[in-house]
C-alpha cells in the first residue's frame, strides 16, 4: 500500500469542520443548522480515524463509535425539539426564538 499523507487526512477533517461551522453560523433554517452540526461531528470523527490509522491503534475507532452514539442521541433530541418548535410557532426560523434577549 502506498503511504497516505497523514497531514492531508487532518486537513480534510479541518475543512469539513470549518464548512460545518459556516453552515451553523449562516443558516436560519433550524434543520439546516442541525445538519451542519452533523457535518462538524462527522469531521471530528474523521480526525480520530486518521489518528487511529497513524498510530495503528483501535482506540481512535472507539472514540469514533462514541461520537456516533452522541450524534444519534443528539439528532433524536434535536429533531424532537424541532417538531415541538414547529408545532408551537409554525416556523423553522431560529430567529423567532429570541426570547432570551436581554
Amino acid at each position, binding site marked *: 500500500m502506498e503511504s497516505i499523507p497523514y497531514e492531508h487526512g487532518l486537513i480534510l477533517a479541518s475543512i469539513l*469542520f470549518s464548512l460545518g*461551522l*459556516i453552515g451553523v453560523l*449562516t443558516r436560519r433554517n433550524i434543520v439546516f443548522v442541525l445538519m451542519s452540526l452533523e457535518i462538524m461531528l462527522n469531521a471530528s470523527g474523521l480526525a480520530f480515524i486518521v489518528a487511529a*490509522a497513524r498510530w495503528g491503534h483501535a482506540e481512535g475507532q472507539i472514540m469514533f463509535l462514541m461520537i456516533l452514539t452522541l450524534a444519534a*442521541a443528539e439528532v433524536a433530541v434535536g*429533531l424532537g425539539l424541532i417538531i415541538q418548535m414547529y408545532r408551537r410557532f409554525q416556523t*423553522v426560523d431560529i430567529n423567532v426564538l429570541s426570547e432570551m434577549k436581554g
Partner: protein
Amino acid sequence: MITLFYLAGAIAIISTVAVIVQTNIVHALIYLILSLLAVAVIFYVLGAPFAAMLEAIVYAGAIMVLFLFVIMMLNLGQHTIDQERSWLSLRGWIAPTIMAGLLLTNFLYVMDGIDHGVEPTRVGVLEVSVLLFGPYVLAVELASILLLAGLVAAYHLAKKRD
C-alpha cells in the same frame, strides 16, 4: 489507494459545500448523504473497515432517514425554497466565513511540521471489539445509557400535548 483517498476527499468537500449552500432541503440532505458516504470511503482507505461500515449504516442510513422523516412531517413545500433563498443574503456569509477561515488557518498552522506519510495499518472488527468489550466496557454502558436518555427525551419532546 491514494487516488481513491483524494477523490473521496474532493467529493466530500464539494458535497458538503453543496449542503450548506442548498436551498432545497431534500437536495441538501442527499448531498449530505453523499458526503458521509465519501467519508466512509476514506475510512476504508485508512484501514478502518468497521468504522466505514458504521458510517454508512448508522450515519448515512439511520440518522439521515430520521432527518428525512422529520422533513416530511414538517411538510416543507416550494415556498420554503423561496424562503431559504431570501434568508441567504450575501452579507450573512461574511462573518461566519471569516471565523471559520481563521479557525482553519489555525488548524493548518498547527499541522505544519507533523511528520509525513502514514502506512495505513488495517485495524479490523476483531481488535476494535476486543478493546470495546475489554477496557472500554464502561464507555459502552455509558453510551447505551446516553442512547436510552436520547430515546426518552425524543419521545417526550415530540409528544403532542395541549
